[in-house]
């Protein structure tokens, strides 16, 4: 009895020792800052430190700040444009890369490679490609094809979104494609064989077998993508810096500008919790959906 208890105790200690490094880091770098952020959001707070308690003023303030809503709307726009684009593109690429072909490996590697690049690299590639006046690749190509008009991708309120979403899709599709490929490989071959024997055409097979069986993966990608897209910042900051005007400024950039350009760290902290709330809701939905599909 007592040896058994001692063993259990020892096991617990060992487990604790293993958990400790993570727990300490998690508390110090995640839990504590979250708490500190809430504290900060109740103050006027500059880079030099606390300036005075103002209660919930920061929260009331951003609810009436049209630039906050504008930035949140831009983020939402990005989510609405990029999510379906990325899902459809990843699915298409996965279907292509999963076909029996001697070049299968090459396809996968080629589609996945952009994912390895850092955000600054893809952003500057985008900027250079879209330079007007025959300087950038696209403009040069258009000139070669005989088009005389210059197109200003980063200055037009619609085209600028095409550019940003295009760059993001090119950058991130490879990862989602991999998720789709692994799901595709889990679909048993017999299903297709049986369907083929029953005379189902390849497109019938796609609609009735492949797509339904990919549904859980699609849901997973959808939610991961939603969460990632709501956090969009770096590529927009680098490609357009939120421009033209404020047309593409996402919420995180507005938070960043409020904190470091306008010296309002408390206000920025308050707005961060609005974004935090959105992300928590999405995470909860994801949790719930995973449970549903697992059931």
């Amino acid at each position: 009895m007592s040896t058994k208890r001692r063993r259990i105790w020892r096991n617990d200690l060992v487990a604790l020792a293993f958990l400790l490094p993570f727990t300490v880091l998690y508390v110090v770098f995640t839990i504590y800052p979250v708490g500190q952020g809430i504290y900060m959001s109740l103050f006027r707070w500059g880079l030099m430190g606390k300036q005075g308690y103002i209660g919930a003023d920061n929260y009331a303030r951003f609810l009436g700040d049209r630039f906050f809503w504008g930035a949140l709307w831009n983020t939402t726009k990005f989510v609405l444009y990029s999510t379906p684009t990325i899902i459809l593109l990843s699915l298409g690429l996965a279907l292509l890369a999963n076909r029996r072909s001697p070049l299968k490996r090459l396809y996968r590697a080629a589609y996945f490679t952009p994912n390895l690049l850092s955000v600054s690299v893809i952003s500057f590639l985008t900027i250079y490609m879209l330079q007007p006046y025959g300087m950038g690749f696209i403009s040069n190509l258009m000139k070669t094809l005989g088009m005389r008009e210059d197109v200003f991708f980063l200055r037009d309120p619609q085209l600028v979104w095409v550019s940003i979403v295009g760059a993001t899709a090119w950058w991130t599709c490879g990862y989602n494609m991999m998720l789709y490929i692994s799901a595709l490989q889990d679909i048993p071959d017999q299903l297709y064989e049986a369907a083929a024997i029953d005379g189902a055409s390849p497109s019938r097979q796609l609609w009735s077998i492949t797509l339904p069986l990919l549904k859980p993966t699609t849901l997973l990608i959808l939610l991961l993508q939603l969460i990632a897209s709501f956090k969009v910042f770096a590529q927009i900051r680098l490609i357009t810096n939120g421009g033209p005007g404020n047309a593409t400024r996402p919420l995180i950039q507005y938070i960043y500008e409020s904190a470091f350009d306008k010296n309002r760290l408390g206000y920025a902290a308050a707005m961060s919790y609005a974004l935090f709330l959105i992300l928590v809701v999405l995470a909860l939905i994801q949790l719930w959906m995973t449970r549903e599909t697992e059931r």
Partner: protein
Amino acid sequence: MKHPIFKKLMGLLLALALLATGLAALAEEVIISESGVVENPEAIVAGENELIFWSLFSGGEGNYMEGLVEQYNATNPKMTVRNVKLNWGEYYTKLITAVSVGKGPDIGISHIAKLPELHDQGVVLPMDEYANAMSFDWSQVNQNTLEAATIDGQVYAVPLDTHPEVFFYNKTILREAGLLNEQDELDLPQDADAFYQFMLDMKAKLPEDIYPLALSSAGDDPWRLVWAMYYQMDGAPVITSDLEIKLEKDKFVAVLDYFKQFYDNGIIPINLEDFYSYFMNLRGAATFITGVWATSSLENIEGLEFGVQSFPVLFGKNAQWGDSHTFILPVTPQKDAERMTEAMKFFDFVSKNSIVWASAGHVVANVNVLASEEFAALPYRSDYADVANHVVFFEPNPYSYPIRAAMIQQIDAFLAGNQTAEETYDNIVLEIEEITF
């Protein structure tokens, strides 16, 4: 009896702890990047007879400043100056955060427009006391800039220079087009309509592949010209020191609409990303407007024959955009009067010897240097030295930088054709209200 896994675990934890202390020790080592920029300036500790100077100058400017510091140290001062170059983009954030934890330098640099913000945050010290201790002669610096460095009757900065926006032109191209006068110079009409006509006429006379005027349609430069033209119309301050928005709608809208014609009618090609390169590649653009810091780069371009003059007075009153580099005394925990006084001696030395600084293209703030024969002998600089007296600064207020950023964004959207001049004005006012709440 101890379990072997226990030992291993303890060993691992110990190793982690050692690693952590090792990392902490590493962080104190000074990290200098390839370009000579110090990544962790707070790790540099001053020697007993040494003043730490955080500078934001890099490239050519950085070398001239380095030269001035070396020159000063060669005079055997009581305290030598150690020049620490910081990354310009991070400069103010580093300065403010370092000062807030008592690790700031003895000497700093501030743009004049940023100074009130630093003052508001409690980052800078008034210098009158230390200036008096070594009898600093305030009359040697440009009074227009000195006034902008004075907050609530106390001086917070020693002006080093003014760097206004000026008008460059390619003599070769304009001579071919027959647009230079007998002195081989460009006569710019000093009137809005005449200037616009003149540029249209220039466009007609130039070969098709040369742009009349190279300028960006986003970022700082268009804003600087709008600023200058608005004040040339005798506009009221964008915002006063009491945070009252006085930006006048009719004048501002008129300036925006006037300015946009230059883009709409092909005088300035819209959306030039890297507009410097068009002027610098000899046959890209006939004229070019930017800050005086471009002068020293242009001088070094082989085969480029250029002239420079102040941006024309288009709306009656001579007003120009410019900013100014100044020396500041950041707040330190000790507030050591002796160190501060020694720092003032360094400022005095640099000011008196700023002929070196003029080589970087700046209009130096020291009036004696400006009046010297040496300065007059410098090519180009004397052509725009007078601009410094007509520069309009922000009225001192802690929000100049974010207000500038907001104005730039809005003018950017206007020039991209996404909003009217009226909407641009309205948005700017809304933004300023949001910034100054």
